[in-house]
């Protein structure tokens, strides 16, 4: 504080124009934190309901941008599931599907959404491999998937004979792993 011994300080409220209801508060030092600034302005008689217009616009815009990123970065799971249901070949049976959309911290990008999709299934018949490859190709090609899925593949060893008791010889088990585009949330 520059003059701690003083009990009074004169300030001027300067209208910014004839037809404008914006006022410049002259003589009010504003190097203080935002909430303290607002408190000080509201403490002035007659300015109890005043708003700090330009800073308010900037702050509201930042809040709105933060909320909007929740909308723009989310994955439409309903679209993904519906497309998957439609595209699974008749000889393929899905046994387990795991999807995760985790929020993680990246040093460069800040908080990001990291998504993963793993599909475990069974494929029957002598064209089992073709059917699984077809499904993998569709995951890489159709817009319902490619909007969010970056790559889809059957990892080495993830297509094998079904060794569970009573399984037909022609049955295969498989796993398709999908990686998604990373979306920054800040």
């Amino acid at each position, binding site marked *: 504080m520059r003059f701690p011994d003083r009990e009074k300080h004169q300030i001027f409220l300067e209208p910014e124009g004839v037809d404008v209801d*914006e006022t410049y508060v002259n003589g009010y030092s504003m190097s203080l934190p935002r909430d303290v600034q607002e408190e000080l302005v509201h403490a002035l008689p007659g300015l109890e309901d005043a708003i700090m*217009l330009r800073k308010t616009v900037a702050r509201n815009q930042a809040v709105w941008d933060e909320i909007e990123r*929740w909308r723009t970065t989310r994955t439409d799971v309903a679209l993904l599931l519906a497309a998957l*249901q439609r595209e699974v070949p008749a000889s393929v049976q*899905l046994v387990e599907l795991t999807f995760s959309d985790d929020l993680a911290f990246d040093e460069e990008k800040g*908080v990001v959404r990291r998504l993963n999709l793993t599909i475990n299934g069974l494929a029957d018949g002598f064209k089992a491999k073709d059917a699984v490859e077809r499904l993998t190709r569709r995951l890489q090609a159709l817009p319902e998937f490619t909007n969010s899925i970056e790559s889809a593949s059957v990892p080495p060893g993830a297509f094998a004979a079904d060794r569970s008791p009573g399984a037909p010889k022609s049955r295969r088990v498989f796993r398709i792993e999908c990686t998604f585009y990373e979306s920054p949330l800040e």
Partner: protein
Amino acid sequence: MKLPEDKKQRVQVIILICMGIVAVLYVVLHAGIIPVTKGLENRKKKLSIVEDKIEKANRDIMQTKRHKAQNTELESELANASMAHLLQHEVGNFLLPAAHHIQKLVEESGIGEHSVHGMGPLRLRQWNKRKNERTVMSYSVRVTVECAYSNLVLFADRMLADNPYVSFSGLSISAQKTQPEKHKMVFDIRWPIWIDLDAYDTYSRMAAKRAAEESSSEEDG
């Protein structure tokens, strides 16, 4: 004035007159014209600075209306998002409204029994570090159901259509040998929530004020 008859003297007088004229011109130039010109130049510079300032001030004044309109629109959007899409709390509890919302959509989607567990707000260490810069964090619930795949698709479609900010943070579907028509499903649903619980009241008041203003302007109109 009569010049002397003597030629030599006449030349001397003429030279003296010329010198006098030069001296007068020098004095007039340096004591009068140059300072006046410099003063004018300085004034022009100052005038140009003032004109620039006035132009900038006028631009700022013109922008005030735009700022006000922009702020009104932003506040209205934030108030709508807060009321309609950010998960509301009941005395600080988020699970109750989340469970209520899910119950409604579960019924609409033809899913039978279900259970909902609150997973609480996600507090990333890095978010906490920068909590002053952030206004929103996430709250998730885990839902466990046994239903057909198509029921889940319907539920997800309604959930996402109902709220553009909500998302599925996790989903696990397992086929059941004993009940092939019903799958065991566990899914996590994530809402954005205000970090500062007072923000709910702030934006509710803002929405109420806006609605009152709109109704009074309609009455006036």
